[in-house]
């Protein structure tokens, strides 16, 4: 058997497949929030680990692009590292951890804190693209519901939440309406990030590999989180600031320090945090050390 078993095209996918995916992307951009079926390929990483996002990125990336990959907001989580390494290997593109330097940002579960620009594309990895899936398991039914703009079930679900819990208890993958037409799953980002999708300057692409769907939010498109007049949409707020960089009004991760209830809160967006620290911002956790050093 030949050791030179297989050679791979630029960015792994063959050009025909890329064209097929680009057509799906163009259709998705033309119908904001609509889930376009596409012939998802088997990728060399498992389904559920970002194969949709990887296929979208592979189809739009060129040799001049600068790629950033985050998972949970961090560049250094293992799967983000693995996907970044994959594109370095198969496309030999420049990679970065700096949000502002990237032309393509592939993400899982977060939108960067820094506002994205019109020269940037945000590629989301999506596990379950169908916002109605947990209300109606059948694809044949949910497609009909979207076609008829029949979203009553979703509002009933949110209403029931309020009736039972006194609030809409959905904290992530919070459903949005795109361009006044399609209800869309923003992927499992915390609802904290929903407002960033609204009228974004950047193109937002969503790839679901296992479920074989691509959808998009073009730049400058309305993205409205579903709510009621008397129960308006609210994002999460944190009482603390980031312990490392002192950032306020950003999404924080809770880090357990010991088994006695000790914990600290730090930026989920690691690049944002590092950037702030480089610019001299100091959080509560680092401040005493600095004083001691002085």
């Amino acid at each position, binding site marked *: 058997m030949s050791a030179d078993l297989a050679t791979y095209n630029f960015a792994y996918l063959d050009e025909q497949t890329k064209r097929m995916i680009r057509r799906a992307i163009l259709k998705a951009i033309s119908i904001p929030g609509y889930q376009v079926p596409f012939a998802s390929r088997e990728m060399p990483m498992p389904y559920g680990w970002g194969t949709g996002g990887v296929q979208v990125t592979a189809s739009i990336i060129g040799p001049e692009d600068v790629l950033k990959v985050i998972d*949970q907001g961090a560049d250094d989580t293992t799967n983000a590292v693995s996907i970044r390494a994959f594109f370095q290997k198969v496309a030999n593109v420049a990679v970065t951890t700096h949000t502002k330097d990237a032309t393509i940002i592939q993400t899982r579960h977060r939108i960067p804190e820094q506002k994205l620009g019109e020269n940037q594309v945000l590629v989301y990895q999506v596990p379950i693209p169908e916002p109605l899936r947990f209300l109606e398991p059948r694809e044949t039914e949910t497609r009909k519901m979207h076609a008829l703009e029949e979203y009553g079930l979703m509002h009933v679900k949110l209403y029931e939440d309020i009736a039972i819990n006194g609030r809409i208890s959905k904290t992530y993958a919070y459903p949005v309406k795109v361009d006044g037409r399609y209800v869309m799953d923003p992927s499992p980002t915390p609802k904290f990030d929903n407002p960033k999708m609204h009228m974004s300057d950047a193109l937002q692409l969503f790839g679901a590999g296992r479920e074989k769907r691509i959808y998009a939010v073009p730049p400058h498109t309305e993205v409205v989180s579903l709510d009621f007049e008397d129960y308006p949409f609210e994002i999460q707020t944190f009482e603390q600031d980031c312990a490392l960089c002192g950032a306020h009004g950003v999404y924080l991760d809770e880090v357990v320090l010991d088994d006695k209830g000790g914990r600290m809160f730090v930026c989920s967006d690691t690049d944002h945090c590092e950037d702030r620290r480089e610019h001299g911002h100091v959080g509560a956790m680092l401040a005493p050390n600095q004083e001691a050093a002085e």
Partner: protein
Amino acid sequence: MYVAVKGGEAAISNAHRLLADRRRGDRSLPSVTIDQIAEQLGLAVDRVMAEASLYDRSLAALAVRQSRGDLIEAIFLLRAYRTTLPRFGNSVPLDTAEMQVERRVSATYKDLPGGQLLGPTFDYTHRLLDPSLLSDEAVEEPARREAGGEEIMRVSDILAHEGLIEADGELPQDHQAGDLTREPMEFPMGRDLRLQALARGDEGFLLALGYSTQRGYGRNHPFVGEIRIGEVEVEMDIPELGFAVSLGHIRVTECQMVNQFKGSSKAPPQFTRGYGLVFGHSERKAMSMSLVDRALRAEELGEDITAPAQDEEFVISHSDNVQATGFVEHLKLPHYVDFQAELAMVRKMRADIEAARTADRGETEMKDAAE
């Protein structure tokens, strides 16, 4: 002092190095060769070829070795290679009537043209561990006989002579068989796509579903019309030549299930069919496939859909083990951002309840004091 978790790259590379070490195992033992796997673990190789939809024994054996014998991982490896291969065209439909049969059994006839051929089967072996296999004892050559001249008719053809069984599915002449690995999947599917999905579906899943139909969840009164295993020729039409040329032989397992059918508003009383065709030697898979294929024809035949095995969207959406294992196992990826959101929500809800209780207690105490 909290130190940001860094070094994912080094950790991953060390993990892969350790994995390679575990795969190799004790270095004082010779490593298994691809040929040994292909020859001596042939049924594992067959399963990998079948569920990866790629007929290549050497590559499948390589995948088995690389995956440390984890067959779903091996299927995944082979599929990820298959997906990058260019497609030259479609083969002519296999003619399994012309199969070089090694095994052929029918449960519906005591004897039939071509006879019953047991072939290499585990059936009727007593499942007693064989100590002779602990050492490398010589194994007898198989008994051979001259091939009989008799044609080995398909049981479905025998029944068809009397018009007792439905015909092969009617598809228009110009019908191009679908390929769900190249086109987006949509429900309801044609039977061609459904059979493709079943042929590459997980053996265990299909086995369980087929079993469920036997236990009453969508019962369809099956008889094994015939199982045949052997080699068939693969041919392809070459447009430039204007005729089909042979590409070689592959080993397949075919199962034709014959199912009793009382008739409905859509079809007259006659025997109906469930079909299974699998790369390599895999009777369990071919039989399960044909049970599930028949169950999924419920709507076409005007039967009530009451059981999971009859539900196309349910069966086809969950039969792919590479998809299933990926999504189940992705739960081990970090989800702390979402978990944080849930944590905050639960804390807030608990605080609300606690506050409401305190307020209640306060009221009761005031009332008590007033009385």
